[in-house]
């Protein structure tokens, strides 16, 4: 009896050692993509166990720093101070790009305005411009929706479009991308931003220009050929100690099959 038990125990222990246990945590923008990638990977490698958790880019990277997770997904590049904290903890950071996401600026479908320049967007989100007639629309107050400050989208918009200026205090913040779509679709003077994959028919995506001359519509093709300016890379950040465990998964995610999933979910493939 004892023998049988110890054999069973040995089997259980070795089985659990063989299975990779990895947790990927972070950006809600990356979440749908990484979930699909992990699904595809697990089908081919039934032994693997990878858990994916959302919460925001900042949450994932904070997890890397305090050691609660070994892989973070992020919709913004890691900040200098975060990198420093990691180094202070004696960890070596590695990264991989999983794909690109284009950020679409959306307005209510009834809005006459269909294109804006970067400067105009900055003025709107910092509260300098408050009426649509100042940017070529009807005489109507602009209602600005933003994501919560934990969102990588929030930081990306601030750094990439608003020249690092702070949002106006009057900006309404929505707890989720779905809430922004819902609010913009039912508020006439609304403007907000969402990931390209989330754009629906009940909101209108604006063409954007960073040079003030050529306006480009947000689409997967325009993001891929780099003509659409509000595009951002999505990253995996991980500590060097899990590199060996993570490698098979990363190879899959960057393979032709993995990149096909990127496209299916609505993001822009790396290759």
């Amino acid at each position, binding site marked *: 009896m004892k023998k049988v038990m110890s054999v069973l125990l040995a089997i259980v222990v070795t089985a659990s050692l063989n299975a990779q246990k990895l947790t990927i945590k972070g950006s809600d923008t990356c979440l749908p993509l990484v979930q699909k990638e992990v699904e595809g990977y697990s089908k081919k490698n039934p032994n693997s166990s990878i858990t994916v958790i959302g919460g925001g880019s900042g949450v994932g990277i904070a997890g890397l720093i*305090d050691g609660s997770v070994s892989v973070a997904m992020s919709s913004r590049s890691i900040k200098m101070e975060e990198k420093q904290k990691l180094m202070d903890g004696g960890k070596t950071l590695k990264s991989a790009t999983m794909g690109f996401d284009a950020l679409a600026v959306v307005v209510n479908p009834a809005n006459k305005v269909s294109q804006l320049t970067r400067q105009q967007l900055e003025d709107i989100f910092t509260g300098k411009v408050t009426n649509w007639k100042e940017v070529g629309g009807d005489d109507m107050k602009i209602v600005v929706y933003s994501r919560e400050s*934990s969102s990588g989208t929030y930081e990306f918009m601030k750094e990439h479009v608003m020249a690092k200026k702070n949002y106006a205090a009057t900006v309404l913040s929505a707890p989720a991308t779905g*809430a922004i779509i*819902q609010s913009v679709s039912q508020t006439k003077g609304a403007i907000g931003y969402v990931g390209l994959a989330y754009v629906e028919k009940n909101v209108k995506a604006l063409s954007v220009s960073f040079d003030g001359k050529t306006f480009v519509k947000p689409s997967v093709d325009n993001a891929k050929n780099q003509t659409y300016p509000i595009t951002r890379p999505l990253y995996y950040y991980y500590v060097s100690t899990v590199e060996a465990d993570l490698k098979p998964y990363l190879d899959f995610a960057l393979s032709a099959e993995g990149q096909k999933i990127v496209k299916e979910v609505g993001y822009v493939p790396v290759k």
Partner: protein
Amino acid sequence: MVSNLNKQLKDFKERFIEGILMVSGTVTTVAVLLIIIFLFKEGVSLFGKSPLENNISILVNEKNPLTAITAAQIKDISDQKITNWKQIGGADDSIILVTINELSTYYTDDQLGDNLQFVPDKVNELVGKTPGILGLFSTKNLGDKYTHKYLSIKDITIGSFLFGKQWFPTATPAAQMGILPLILGTLWVSFGAILFALPIGIAAAIYLAEIAGKRMRNTIKPIIELLSGIPSVVFGFFGLVVIVPIIQKLFHLDVGETGLAGSIVLAIMALPTIITVSEDAMRTTPRLMKEASLALGATQWQTIVRVIIPYSFSGISAAAILGIGRAIGETMAVIFVTGSANVIPHTLLQPMHTIPAVIAAELGEVSQGGRHYKALFALGCVLFIMTFIVNLIVQYIFSKRKHNQV
């Protein structure tokens, strides 16, 4: 002999049960106390801290005549609302803001070193050769190399926290930690909620206690009690999809996410408490009193207004206050519908933000032990004190009720 043994066994059993009760009571009390101590320990440690992130120093060139700067000025500088030193009392020179993140635009990665080991030298060099510089660097980035001038900044105080008008906790480099808009938002939304919930709740309670037939009561009451079992996020989304557009159309507003929408959703959520508690209070009115009133020729309505409501007044007040307590502390429902804008509200028809919603939305993101984290705990303390006051009032009213009954 046998009966003696039995008695001993019984004694032992009773003592055992008493022991378990005592232990669970003590454990609960200790747990609650620990949570409160933790909350206040983290919250209070915010005060006396610099509004800048840990160990960040403000560096300027020796030629700069200023000696101090405020957090609000730093934010305005990084927002480019202030671009020249003379706007804040310095010399006529444009301000060049440099933090560790901008350093890479002045020096190449090679110059800074693989492990950033040359950063202190470069910071010192840059500050020395740039008269208009405003450098924000942590002591780690300075090492012992820094030889130029520092500016001082006022620490966060209880006063600046409670009465500050700007809440930009993630603003870099200088966070703005003023919670006045949040306190006022919480009060507006809760006050509005109780304004809706109280009349409707009491009316429903009177109906259930005195007017409705037995069968009616047995159907309606479980349904009302069921309301409190619905997750609050469902109420929130219901509010966003249904109530927000109605408010927008009704008042011809630019935006429907307002304090009013929050009040209505919270009123719906507070109703079960108010109805159940005040109905129970009304039903404790002694039958003799009711019958005496009716026997004197009073109508049923007169009996309700003159006998039942006065008798159960303290119970109704307690119901109202429990309802407010629920409204003040509610999170997920309001996060969807109030618009979450950090501005000081002047009417209920404006977007506003409440304390619990801020904590829920932001606590997930903060780096543990940081200044934003502490500020959220300090917000928790403020909320705790607000609900504590509400609880004191409830206790006062309950003690008054006992006095009445004697």
